[in-house]
């Protein structure tokens, strides 16, 4: 019995590869297994190789597996591109239609199954993915009933007959592979799962759910990979709670509209990726200067320019920290798990309103689109804090309201447009306490200091996710966003081998948690910062904030693919 199964389905884009993975994964999730899915796709709609790799375990799974147990291939390219991940214990299930051949050095056996042929005999070759799922089910010793609910949900509205046909396709897929492999049926059976119901979602779902729970009721955005799902979720859900989404003409409009709506008093946000963030830079400065709350999600993808639009990278960090001209206070949060993505989003909206500044929630493609099983979020932990909003009863100002009053903590009272006694001016020009333009040197200093002073009030629990079992470590591994799972697995391996390894995953990127990180760096002989970029952006930010430069090195990967645990283990070993 296996304790981990790594399954991959591949073929041409637009051929139903996604739904094959989706149906298999959903069924496994409902059995209580833990999953981690990662899609490889290209920036075209039809054609081009795509695959979906799903790692399944009865216990928690944190990362994509290095190896592959079962490869389901709908074309030869799938075999050619992916066979190196196979081991002698693996198996290839390939559609007989394309006369599949295993490359000479392929260590796993290949079985050609008439996916298309069987489906066509049932009425439509579209059902070839169900035949493939049936074949998979045979290897895993899964009963068809496991798929009944999922199939009914997907095809139910097309009628009972369609559901029945699809179930039949699964059954026939099972029979077809059983005839070929005989007693090896069931060899890939997984240890039983706990049967607990968990959510199965992508990071974009987690942040969108978070935004909804945080009370965001307006979103303005422009489509882009890998952020669009956030907008699509909001388009489905905001109307149910009275809110609205505007798909704008560009990201400049998206960011400035969100600023306008926040100024109006409703929690508003936008979401994009690198190219969109580049366009938003001036607006981010406006939010900082006018002290209007603004929440932006940046789902990082491969840059620069259009770069690798459908691939993993973590190269926006510097641009987010230092982007926008002039100097403003801002907060950048980088969640690394589904839970963090959800709760940090809620924090982002709270911080943006409490400190009246822009908050960027940084994710990356692997986190944004990787689909994982996750325990339900905790409703009781959702807390909405809106900061110093002055109610109509609290102001009867006759003159302009001091919206930019210089206060001890730098946070000024905020009044929403419409309120009598609240009239004030807002401008990106340097301004006085009433918001009226002023270039006086003293005022400039006061306002600048006031804006930056707000950061002293930043409350952020656990700015670094720490797993540091060693008082004196041989190595401290550092990362941010989706590299967390791979690093955790590396840490386990190294510790088991006697290499004392600590792990710090930076969650609050800016202002950089210098104190927490310094303490960890001090305890380590070597510091290795693991990043999906070419220049070591996180380590550079670290070096600006704390010491330990001589012992700090990088492991950098910028080929568009995520770190895999064994690969990373070897890279770390080379460094120590």
């Amino acid at each position: 019995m296996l304790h981990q199964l790594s399954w991959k389905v591949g073929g041409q884009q637009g051929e139903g590869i996604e739904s094959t993975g989706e149906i298999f994964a959903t069924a496994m999730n409902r059995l209580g297994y833990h999953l981690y899915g990662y899609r490889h796709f290209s920036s075209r709609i039809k054609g081009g190789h795509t695959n979906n790799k799903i790692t399944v375990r009865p216990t928690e799974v944190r990362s994509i597996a290095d190896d592959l147990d079962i490869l389901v291939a709908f074309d030869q390219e799938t075999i050619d591109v992916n066979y190196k991940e196979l081991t002698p214990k693996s198996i290839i299930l390939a559609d007989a239609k394309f006369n599949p051949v295993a490359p000479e050095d392929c260590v796993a056996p290949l079985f050609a199954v008439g996916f298309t042929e069987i489906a066509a005999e049932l009425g439509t070759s579209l059902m070839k993915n169900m035949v493939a799922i049936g074949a998979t089910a045979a290897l895993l010793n899964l009963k068809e009933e496991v798929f009944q609910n999922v199939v009914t949900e997907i095809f139910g509205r097309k009628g009972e007959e369609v559901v029945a046909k699809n179930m039949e396709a699964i059954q026939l897929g099972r029979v077809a592979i059983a005839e070929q492999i005989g007693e090896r049926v069931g060899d890939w059976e997984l240890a039983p799962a706990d049967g607990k119901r968990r959510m199965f979602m992508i990071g974009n779902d987690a942040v969108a759910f978070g935004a909804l729970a945080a009370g965001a009721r307006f979103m303005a955005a422009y489509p882009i990979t890998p952020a669009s799902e956030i907008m699509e979720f909001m388009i489905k859900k905001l109307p149910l709670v009275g809110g609205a989404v505007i798909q704008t003409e560009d990201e400049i409009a998206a960011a400035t509209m969100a600023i306008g709506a926040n100024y109006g008093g409703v929690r508003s946000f936008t979401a994009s990726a690198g190219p969109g963030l580049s366009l938003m830079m001036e607006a981010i400065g406006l939010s900082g200067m006018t002290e209007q709350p603004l929440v932006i999600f940046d789902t990082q993808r491969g840059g620069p320019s259009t770069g690798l639009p459908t691939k993993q990278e973590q190269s926006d960090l510097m641009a987010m920290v230092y982007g926008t001209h002039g100097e403003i206070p801002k907060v950048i949060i980088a969640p690394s798990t589904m839970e963090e993505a959800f709760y940090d989003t809620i924090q982002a909206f709270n911080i943006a309103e409490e400190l009246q500044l822009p908050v960027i929630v940084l994710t990356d493609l692997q986190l944004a689109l990787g689909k994982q099983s996750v325990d339900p979020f905790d409703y009781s932990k959702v807390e909405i804090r809106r900061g110093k909003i002055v109610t109509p009863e609290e102001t009867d100002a006759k003159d302009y309201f001091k919206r930019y009053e210089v206060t001890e903590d730098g946070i000024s009272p905020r009044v929403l447009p419409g309120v009598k006694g609240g009239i004030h001016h807002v401008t990106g020009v340097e301004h006085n306490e009433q918001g009226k333009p002023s270039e006086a040197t003293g005022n400039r200093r006061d306002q600048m200091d006031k804006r930056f002073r707000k950061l002293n009030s930043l409350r952020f629990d656990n700015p670094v996710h720490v797993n540091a079992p060693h008082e004196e470590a041989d190595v401290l591994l550092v990362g941010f966003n989706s590299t967390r799972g791979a690093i955790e697995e590396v840490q386990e391996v190294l510790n088991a081998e006697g290499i004392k390894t600590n792990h710090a995953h930076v969650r609050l990127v800016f202002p950089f948690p210098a104190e927490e990180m310094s303490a960890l760096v001090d305890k380590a002989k070597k510091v290795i910062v693991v990043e999906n970029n070419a220049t070591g952006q996180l380590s550079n930010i670290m070096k600006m904030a704390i010491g330990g430069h001589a012992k700090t090195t990088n492991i950098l990967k910028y080929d568009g693919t995520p770190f895999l645990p064994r690969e990373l283990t070897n890279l770390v070993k080379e460094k120590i």
Partner: protein
Amino acid sequence: MATFKDFRNDVKPNWCPGCGDFSVQAAIQRAAANVGYEPNELAVVSGIGCSGRISGYINSYGFHGIHGRALPIAQGLKMANRDLKVIASGGDGDGFAIGMGHTIHAIRRNIDITYVVMDNQIYGLTKGQTSPRSAAGFVTKSTPGGAIEPSLKPLEVALTAGATFVAQGFSTEIKELTALIEAGLNHKGFSFINVFSPCVTYNKVNTYDWFKENLTKVADIEGYDSSNREQAMQAVMQSEGLLTGIIYQDTETTSYQEKVSGYSEIPLTDIDISLTEEQFDKLTKEFM
């Protein structure tokens, strides 16, 4: 009830004496009072330019944003608080060069706000470069040999973009301009008002006298029907855009807000923004 004086504040405009923008400001203040707003019920959002300073000169909520982006800020504000009256304003560079994309899409989108452009056919604040509104041949600092690009035709653009309200005024004709802005404020949807607002410092061609000589009022065109888009387009083309009055108004098309499904009828700022536990659990189950 507020009078136009209630819309005055104590800030002294830094416009050059004689600048057309003074009268636009006065017209907005009068129109706001005439339609019965209180200062706190109005927000003026403006872009960057000499004209963009206007939001600081009116006693109302004011937001002076960034160059070319008055419209998206204003639209976001209106979406947040649909009870608030929102005016966006700025120069011709602001609205027709850097902000042109937003202008066209705001017109198409038809959110219920009023947009007043102070069109002086030149860049004032940056000291006299050509604008998309400068006529071909116009000599400026950036076009010493005369502009070679044809000038942009905002009324034609607005009409083809699907505008539901298009008007044009002239800043010295304060009565007419006030009436146009009032009509815009009362219009249910996006109202676009282009105003010839001479720059006395950098534009020595399109002067007050020049406009007086060249402008025609639609009211003087016999049988002019402002609900007829084809006729509006024809009149605009024939006059090369030198018309004033309500050029076109469509009173039937509903505004964007009326069309958004599920959008709260009370301002989003007034709704309870927390999810109930029931809503939360329902969402959770959808992922299971």
